[in-house]
């Protein structure tokens, strides 16, 4: 069963990509992106895991006891912090996009016009050629 972490990571990444592609709500889309990132946590910790070994803390174990790879755990720790920051940034961008366009559906987002926010009908009234 050593393939199980890789299979779970691949499944999480695939289902997250499916959610990203089929989402109709920007907040739901950020949640799907965090599922994609949890695939990297599972992949990295599954790479560094050795069966029957201890956590890499040698306070009450003699040095040289078989332990799991601490480098992968440091990478996952960095990944979690980056993921939380990315979620916060994308949620702020989502709120700003909602304030600008009035919708959370990615299908209904209009391309940004030169005039800025909520000026699209006024601009088309001023320039009927557009």
């Amino acid at each position, binding site marked *: *069963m050593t393939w199980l972490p890789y299979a*779970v990571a691949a499944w999480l990444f695939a289902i997250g990509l499916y*959610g990203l592609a089929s989402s*109709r709500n920007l907040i*739901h889309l950020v949640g799907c992106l965090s*599922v994609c990132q*949890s695939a990297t946590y599972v992949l990295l910790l599954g790479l560094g895991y050795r069966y029957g070994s201890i956590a890499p803390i040698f306070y009450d174990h003699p040095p040289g006891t078989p332990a799991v790879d601490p480098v992968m755990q440091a990478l996952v720790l960095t990944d979690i912090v980056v993921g*939380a920051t990315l979620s916060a940034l994308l949620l702020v961008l989502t709120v700003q996009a909602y304030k600008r366009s009035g919708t*959370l559906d990615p299908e209904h987002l209009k391309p940004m016009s030169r005039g800025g926010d909520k000026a699209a009908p006024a601009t088309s009234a001023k320039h009927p050629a557009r």
Partner: protein
Amino acid sequence: MSAILILLFLLTAASGTAVVLIRDPARQIFALAGNGVVLTILFTALQAPDVALSELAVGGAAVPLLFLVALMAVRTGRRDEEHEG
């Protein structure tokens, strides 16, 4: 690989699937917090207590609260529009 580890891996896959398949963002927040807690238990079983601690703080509390704040901002914006219009 022991049975509890296999069970936790499968539970992780199931909770990630639940986060994607629950389409309502207000309900998705609960699934997201549950996913964070399941990942915390998985990391503890994988002998990574420091990662589990940070995942408990970030994935179990901070990120769902961020989603809640974003959802609240969107809803209050919608209510303001209704009052204006």
